[in-house]
């Protein structure tokens, strides 16, 4: 399938003013300033196909948002090449801008003093959406996100969840072929988070846009992104399937046991198990076990203790990714 988004060796260097702390430092900066170059992105190469959702994962300041801003044509890259739908984003051709969208969880794009419906009408003119298509799209989006009753309320008076839904509508009214999500569920309650995730999946099914999503919520990544790119210090250190991250890098499994009676009656057994105790309560036991030892540990527990329920789960994906982010070396691609 043809890639909609393609970057090669993309880099970005920011020049940052370095200021010494204190009053003397402030005085000195009036006369002479020191600048440092901060490498925000280094040789980033990636591709995204239509209908694909790529999750960009990384710590704060890793370069995720910088990458999204460059891809959307907001900031100028220092080096490398980009092609999105055959356009260089930095040229900001109107034809390109009519086909993309950026949804920012931390930054309102709608006009705060106007009701949502007025904002949408304004966007209809900006994107030159034909009336029939505008009506059809708006009806679908409003119905999917259940915000019909809030359309005539000033944006500033909406709750965060309602505002975010309006931002989604505004960003998708013109049916973009490329959508960037920058922390779309940040600060939202669980119901609103789920509603937005489900909506994104449904929208993807119907319109098949290429999407890039950044989020610190692992649930966003797990539910929406079959593929992730882990970015660290401006470099992509992993680009591949999310499931493979678990298979390749999860060294442990979590054994959760519900026990009959008090398991503390047999402390020596627990001590002898090749496992790390995560939780130990009278009727509950949670163990972290190396993948190779899961069968033997489970078997010895079942032989020597009365177990009401047992479950074996993979390590939390967030923990695995965090470990990967912390590792110093480039991880490379997991073996297929």
């Amino acid at each position, binding site marked *: 399938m043809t890639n909609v988004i393609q970057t090669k060796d993309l880099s970005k260097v*920011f020049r940052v*003013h370095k200021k010494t702390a204190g009053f003397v430092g402030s005085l000195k900066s009036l006369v002479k300033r020191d600048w440092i170059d901060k490498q925000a992105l280094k040789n980033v190469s990636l591709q995204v196909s239509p209908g694909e959702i790529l999750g960009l994962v990384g710590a704060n300041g890793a370069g995720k*948002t910088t990458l999204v*801003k460059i891809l*959307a*044509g*907001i*900031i*100028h890259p220092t080096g490398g090449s980009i092609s999105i739908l055959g356009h260089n984003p930095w040229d*900001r051709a*109107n*034809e390109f*801008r*009519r086909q*993309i*969208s*950026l949804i*920012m969880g*931390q*930054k309102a*794009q709608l*006009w705060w*003093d*106007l009701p949502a419906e*007025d904002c949408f*009408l*304004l*966007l209809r*003119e*900006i*994107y*030159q959406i034909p009336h029939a298509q505008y009506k059809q799209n708006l009806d679908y989006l409003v119905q999917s996100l259940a915000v019909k009753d809030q359309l005539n309320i*000033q944006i500033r008076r909406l709750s965060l969840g309602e505002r975010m839904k309006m931002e989604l509508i505004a960003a998708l009214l013109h049916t973009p072929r490329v959508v960037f999500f*920058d922390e779309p569920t940040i600060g939202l309650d669980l119901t609103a988070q789920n509603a937005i995730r489900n909506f994104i999946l449904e929208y993807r099914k119907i319109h098949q846009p290429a999407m890039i999503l950044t989020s610190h919520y692992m649930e966003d990544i797990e539910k929406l992104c079959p593929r992730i790119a882990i970015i660290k210090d401006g470099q992509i250190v992993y680009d591949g399937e999310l499931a493979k991250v678990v298979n390749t890098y999860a060294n442990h499994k979590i054994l959760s046991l519900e026990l009959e009676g008090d398991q503390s009656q047999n402390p020596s057994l627990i001590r002898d198990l090749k496992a790390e105790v995560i939780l130990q309560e009278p009727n509950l036991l949670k163990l972290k076990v190396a993948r190779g030892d899961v069968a033997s540990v489970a078997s010895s527990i079942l032989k020597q203790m009365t177990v009401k329920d047992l479950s074996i789960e993979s390590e939390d994906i967030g923990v695995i990714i965090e470990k990967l982010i912390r590792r110093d070396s480039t991880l490379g691609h997991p073996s297929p």
Partner: protein
Amino acid sequence: MKWFSAMYSAELKRMFTYRVDFWVQFFFGIAVELAIAYFLWDALFTIDGSHEISGYTMPMMMLYTVFAAFGGRIVRGNERMIVASDIYDGGLTKYLLYPINYIIVIFSQALAFSTVTVFQMALGLFLLFAIFGIPQEYQFTFENMLMGTSACLVASVFYFVTYVIIDYAAFWVDTVWGLSVMYRFIAQFLSGFFIPLEMFPDSLRKIAYFTPFPYIGAEPIKMFLGRSSWQQWAHVNVVIVLWTIPVAIILQIVWHRGLKNYTGVGI
């Protein structure tokens, strides 16, 4: 350019949303300006002891102040450092995403402000003339109003491009407030919005006329006061257009250079 009228009407809607702010800003701002001018000129006329200063009687001086206040608002539009704020807080980002020209968006907002000011001026003049009467030596004509208002609207385009260039400095420096205030002060002083240019020393007045500023202030005010002809009106507008073209070209160059420094803060 249907989106231009949509942006223009959106700005009007925004201005009308906060009606208390709308009326208070209008009446209070003008009232304070006129009150200060009245006490100042009254004291000067008393000290001077003469009937006229630089060709203005006290009633005509007050009328000058009224037209300078309204005309100045039309010319200056909503000079609230919007562009600089957009650069600093990342508000520019959304306009870079939309398939429209950012500067035209900002201009549509400034034009909406100027348009509303024209209607406010009509209402303000009606109230002032109804309460204080029309000075005997002044002949109010709609022709003078049309001449003055249209010259102010043309001047507003020039003023817009110049203060946006100052705002663009925000791409490079951490604050442009000082620069902006300095520009506004110089521009308004040389335009004759503070005091009539006739009161300037000859040399300073001559220097002022080498700049575009008298053509965006003193000259349109003369038109309101009935001291200009259509020929002068044409001359003033041609001068302003000739100044606007190179400044607009510089504006474009600065925009493209500055944008490379934009970091899109806030996301």
